[in-house]
């Protein structure tokens, strides 16, 4: 009995009249599992924006719309974040089956919805088709040709992702020769080898890269999830999520195409990397995908590019210091997360193909 009454207590909804300010609503809703937004009239649109605001701010409990709301409004109420509509008008009058709207013109205002707005559906289809055409056109092309074409094609919305690791100099050099102002995204995990940072700065200087974005983890998230700085030891995947995946996703929001240094010879999931791919959201350009380890070294010598200082010390692939070990073969990723199942930090969706297929499965226009 005691248990039941406690549950009753926690499930008692917090009631928020629709006229409350969004700040008040957020304050009132904090920590509760169920919030009722009270509509005095079905014409009061404030509740719609309050719900969207609460959801966008991270409220995950149950959200109920309470008041004389019409069945005609149910679809919109759910899209702005309500789970349930409590109204005696919903079933009144035997309105029968409501007309469904299968497509929408707007993203769900909650920020976390699943409905893709028409403008994104169409754009993603077009982007995927365009990437496929480029992939076909650039099949077997040189890294220079791939970069020349794609840097032009996606000008203003393309960035380079670089770890300034063992092989990074080659791709960066080729890009700098064509468009040195291309944004270069570097994830500063605060766990890099000092040599990597020195090497990064030296390369930026030498290649004349004029737009490097240093991406850091969100300080609030870092304080919450890794207060002692030892997260890597407890859960390296969570550490990567905090220090790499999320910061990169935030930065990538501004770009539709990203150049990576992934190569097939890295093996594992990278064994089938193609020069141009579509991941369902962005186009990935992998201009060096087809180069072998020895071709990479040959080009390094031919272009007189400096090696990462740790390569000499036996690190063929270089990430953060806690999760990088020495390894035997040149270019190998064996030393990454050694002793764990993992071979990737997670910034590259392991199943880009599936997502791309999903994007393309949208009814064609």
């Amino acid at each position, binding site marked *: 009995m005691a248990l039941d009454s406690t549950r009753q207590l926690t499930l008692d909804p917090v009631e928020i009249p629709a*006229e409350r*300010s*969004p700040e008040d609503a957020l304050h009132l809703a904090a920590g509760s599992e169920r919030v009722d937004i009270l509509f005095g009239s*079905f*014409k*009061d*649109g*404030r509740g*719609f*924006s*309050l719900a*969207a*605001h609460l959801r*966008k701010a991270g409220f995950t409990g149950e959200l109920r719309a309470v008041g004389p709301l*019409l069945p*005609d409004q149910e*679809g*919109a*109420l759910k*899209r*702005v974040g309500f789970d349930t509509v409590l109204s005696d*008008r919903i079933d*009144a*009058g*035997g*309105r*029968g089956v*409501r*007309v*469904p*709207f*299968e*497509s*929408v*013109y*707007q*993203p*769900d*205002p909650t*920020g976390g919805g699943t409905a893709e*707005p*028409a*403008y*994104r*559906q*169409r*754009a*993603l289809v*077009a*982007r995927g088709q*365009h990437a496929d055409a480029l992939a076909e056109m650039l099949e077997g092309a040189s890294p220079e040709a791939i970069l020349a074409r794609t840097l032009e094609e996606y000008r203003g*919305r393309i960035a380079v992702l670089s770890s300034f690791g063992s092989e990074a100099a080659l791709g960066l050099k080729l890009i700098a020769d064509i468009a040195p102002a291309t944004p270069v995204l570097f994830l500063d995990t605060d766990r890099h080898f000092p040599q990597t940072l020195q090497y990064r700065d030296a390369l930026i200087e030498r290649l004349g890269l004029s737009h490097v974005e240093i991406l850091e983890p969100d300080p609030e998230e870092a304080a919450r999830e890794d207060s002692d700085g030892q997260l890597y030891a407890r859960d390296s995947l969570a550490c990567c999520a905090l220090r790499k995946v999320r910061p990169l996703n935030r930065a990538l*929001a501004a770009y*539709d195409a990203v150049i990576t240094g992934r190569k097939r010879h890295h093996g594992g999931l990278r064994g089938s990397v193609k020069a141009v791919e579509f991941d369902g*959201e962005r186009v990935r350009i992998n201009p060096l995908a087809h180069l072998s380890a020895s071709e990479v070294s040959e080009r390094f010598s031919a272009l007189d590019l400096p090696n990462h200082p740790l390569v000499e010390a036996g690190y063929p692939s270089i990430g953060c210091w806690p999760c990088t070990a020495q390894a035997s073969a040149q270019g190998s990723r064996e030393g990454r997360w050694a002793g764990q199942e993992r071979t990737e930090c997670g910034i590259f969706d392991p199943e880009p193909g599936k997502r791309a297929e999903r994007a393309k499965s949208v*009814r064609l*226009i």
Partner: protein
Amino acid sequence: MYRYDEIDREIVDARTAEFREQVQARLSGALTEDEFKPLRLMNGVYLQLHAYMLRVAIPYGVLSSEQLRTLAHIARTYDRGYGHFTTRQNIQFNWPKLVDIPDVLDQLAGVEMHAIQTSGNTIRNTTTDPFAGAADDEIADPRPWCELIRQWSTVHPEFTWLPRKFKIAVTGSPEDRAAIGVHDIGLKLVAKDAGEIGFEVHVGGGQGRTPRIAAKIRDYLPANELLAYLTAVLRVYNLAGRRDNLYKARIKILVESMGADAFTQAVETTYRDIRGRELALPAEEIERVSSYFVPPPAGAPDEAPSNDRAFLTWREVNVKPHKVAGRAIVVIALKPYGKAPGDATAEQMEAIADLADRYGRSEIRVTKEQNLVLPHVEAAALPSVYEGLKAIGLATANAGRPSDIVACPGLDYCNLANARSIPIAQAISEALEAAGLDEKAGEVTIKISGCINACGHHHIANIGLLGVDKKGEEVYQLTLGGIADGDAAIGKIAGPGLSANDAIDAVVTCVQVFADRAELGETFIDTLTRLGHEPFKEAVYGA
């Protein structure tokens, strides 16, 4: 012009089907009138004095000949053979039966049209420059942005129950022809040195009971951030706009009560919170929509010389320069002397559709001055277009002339009106013709509203009339000095209210004073600024 894809079609079809069910539910009693009313309004259906009125959206005033023919068909089949073009670039049918409206909407959907959000406390049809894509002073074509706004605002889940109606206007030319200063949101396309385009954002303008000029809240918004920023403005308004007083519910009152700075800050904060990938317009979609709005090819180089004086006058008055060589913009003034402003019969609509097909790339525009435009006419075909218009009584050379009068439907049709507008406009038009003032006077705008809601745009008329009800009598207030486009301005009341007859005389008198005292090339506003209001007031009210 834009063509629907499968998604557009599906949404409009779903909405039409939804409304059919709602009408059924009202007829069966499952929906009360109080519940049904806002639902019908947001589908363009009013109940006016004599009948239902259906307001059909003409998105940013752009029509195809096929669409115009469908409007003609609707006028003939479901109405009384005519339609009324409005100051918001839409068309209204004054006589449809409620039970027929779902069928009308189906027919509209068949030609990619609808009546969604032409009324109600929703985001209304976005308006723009009627010369968009043809004007020779354009920075960028506003139509793709209007279409993107149309889609974003259509059946918006969060913004369908706003405190009050919400109107957005976009201009792509430095010489604003969309009156962005008197809109809830006015967007002006601007280009950066590097050629990137974006928007200057103005918020809180409007006419009605408390006319206000919009405040500029942002100098530059990157174009692809448009939807995120609009969402932020609308969310601030939806949450904080007043709902306790109908007359204080527009965003202009919110901007004024918060102060433009605090309002701007609230919008910017919300914008930072919500912006992101989901709300950013993808380059591919901007490109796709833009691809529907390409300029027409050049026309034949030579325009045959003509000796027809009437044609030459019409050509000088109603034809505007086009940005493409060998083409011209033709304004079809729906203002024959003594007729109701903005009305067109089914036959006229069909004849205009034919002219558009033959000489104007099948495209027609609707203007906020209640005129139609053939935006892309081959210059060589101007005489033929003129003859074609003459045959249907629409070749009056008065576009932009004094008799190009704007008038709301007024008490002849409208449930809200206090006084009649159309008969006043007709009488003024006849008097101006009789006095030859279209020829004698320079540029002046006359606009008439039958109530304070100002659908007739009297606030921004050079010479405005506002109809009021004074103890059961129709009385008209005369205003002077309003400006619609460019640096919008609100007219000032000139003196005591006038009877209908006196109001008609007063307007004609003001035009006469202008004609008599204007210096060469002066517009009414120039003369008014130079002389002050006194000479006009004196002529109307006596010393």
